């Protein structure tokens, strides 16, 4: 027997301090990814301070220069330049802002709408439930990327349309989970007890049911967040998302594809960033799920 017995009951329910949290061994493997995510968030927030150059500033004389290229003025392009001579590092830093903003806003939009519909379907049942859940089934049977392409074709590509498209295609995920959770919670005695206390439906949903299902909803949201970053990159890669000259990792890679034989760095660095960001989000999402659902720790 080399496995160490792990006492679940002995662990504190909620760590009071960060040091206490870090002292627990199972927090260690996740730490580098938390740092990576924090770095990307910092990059996005402080993009204008961090980027060495304007992300849209062209310099046609120094097109497609490799990483480490130094201009005649002594400026070092650490990640090289793109096909219009723009600094790739600056574009990637600003691209983080686009990626995270789109992902965050679309998760908010689809999460709020989806959770609300799931709560309503699970609480009121009857024809409302049938209408909402059949709509969910229909939405989930349509290929998401196809739906996104059609919606963008109708609305036209822009930052806000992208968020609307992502919100519109992703809400059923939240609705399914919220619906299932609400069904479980709505029949518990404390909900009837709240009715007994004279509480109305809105108060019961907001004060008693929503807080009791918020854990699973947060887990869905974290996993969706990673997916949204990929979706934004994918749609931008296809030319349906963020439009040039605004820097987006997907759009940068899309252009870089044409030069991949001569200027590999244009595709590789945004791709690497995308990979690291989505990986850290997904791993942190899994970790959150394990923390919120004590049963899955033992599996």
């Amino acid at each position: 027997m080399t496995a160490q017995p792990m006492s679940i009951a002995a662990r504190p329910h909620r760590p009071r301090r960060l040091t206490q949290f870090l002292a627990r061994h199972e927090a260690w493997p996740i730490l580098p990814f938390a740092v990576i995510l924090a770095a990307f968030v910092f990059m996005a927030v402080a993009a204008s301070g961090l980027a060495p150059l304007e992300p849209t500033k062209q310099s046609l004389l120094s097109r497609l220069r490799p990483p480490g290229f130094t201009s005649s003025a002594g400026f070092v392009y650490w990640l090289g330049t793109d096909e219009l001579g723009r600094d790739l590092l600056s574009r990637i830093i600003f691209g983080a802002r686009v990626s995270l903003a789109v992902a965050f806003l679309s998760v908010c939009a689809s999460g709020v709408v989806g959770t609300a519909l799931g709560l309503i379907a699970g609480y009121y049942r009857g024809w409302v439930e049938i209408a909402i859940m059949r709509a969910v089934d229909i939405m989930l049977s349509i290929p998401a990327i196809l739906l996104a392409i059609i919606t963008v074709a109708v609305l036209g590509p822009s930052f806000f349309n992208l968020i609307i498209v992502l919100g519109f295609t992703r809400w059923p995920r939240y609705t399914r989970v919220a619906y299932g959770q609400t069904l479980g919670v709505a029949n518990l005695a404390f909900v009837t007890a709240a009715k007994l206390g004279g509480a109305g439906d809105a108060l019961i949903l907001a004060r008693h049911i929503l807080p009791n299902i918020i854990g699973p909803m947060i887990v869905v949201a974290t996993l969706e967040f990673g997916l949204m970053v990929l979706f934004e990159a994918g749609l931008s890669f296809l030319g349906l998302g963020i439009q040039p000259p605004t820097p987006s990792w997907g759009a940068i890679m899309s252009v870089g594809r044409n030069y991949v034989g001569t200027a590999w760095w244009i595709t590789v660095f945004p791709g690497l960033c995308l990979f690291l960001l989505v990986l850290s989000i997904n791993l942190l999402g899994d970790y959150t799920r394990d923390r919120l659902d004590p049963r899955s720790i033992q599996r």
Partner: protein
Amino acid sequence: MAGPILTVADLAVAIAGRRVVDGISFAVKTGETLAIVGESGCGKSMTAFAIMRLLPQAARISGGAVLFEGRDLARIAESEMKALRGNRISLIFQEPASSLDPLMTVADQLIEAINAHKPASHSEAAAHALAMLRAVGIADPARRMRQYPFELSGGMCQRVMIAIALACRPSVLLADEPTTALDVTIQAQILELMKRLRSETGTSIVLITHDMGVVADMADRVLVMYAGRIVEEAAVDDLFQAQHHPYTMLLMRSVPRLDAPPKRALPVIEGTVPSYAALGTGCRFASRCPFVSEHCRAEEPPLRQIAPGRATACWHHERVAAAGMVPA
């Protein structure tokens, strides 16, 4: 005692067209404790939930009236009902642990119930909540106020539930098996508490239970239900003295007795409650009844008054009562 505070007349509850509660009538006087007894699934809880208009979605009140403070609770608008529920007429549940929201402190839940009917400032409501916790015998109420339900024991949760149910001083309290989930010592404490609160506040109690010991301890009058109908009604002492319905008699015999010889098999009522789909024209207890006759299978006996305050739904009640006198 004055006239009845709550009158239930010919109440019926249907689930998918089947009457699971059928023709229930009773009256509760001020300060009285009425017990409703019967085995699981006989419609006791459905009756309570119907009175409170908190029936599950599949069930609905299909007939009858519930008269309370001059209004018919079965017919008034939901908004009117909301004003009465938990305020003038209240309910405590079987499962104390799941009756409290796991994510709210005791104080928040009590204050929410108080504010729903008697809006007050936060400090007033909190003071009232504290007083209620003290009244239901919770030690160190100020500390308990800040705790979450998982930090409380089952008996403590039930005390909190009682505090919530009584916070607005209802004139009728329905208690749906309030002690079933608790162990016997806690059970005794909760019953003692309910008795004390009844004498202090004059609240009428409708006590739903399957425990004859609880009935003997608490009730003034008893209704015995079987398969959705009342089969016998009597004052508690009269009922324990002599049973006029075979179901009541067999129910009493199936209670373990301290004076019975040890290791003797406990008498049971043979068979099971008929499914509501299979109910025929005759008496619902006919298939399990030792006194059954042709008459019973052909025609359902109505609930008839046989003495003041005493009624039974059996064609052979005299024979049953006589048989009950002979020790089994």
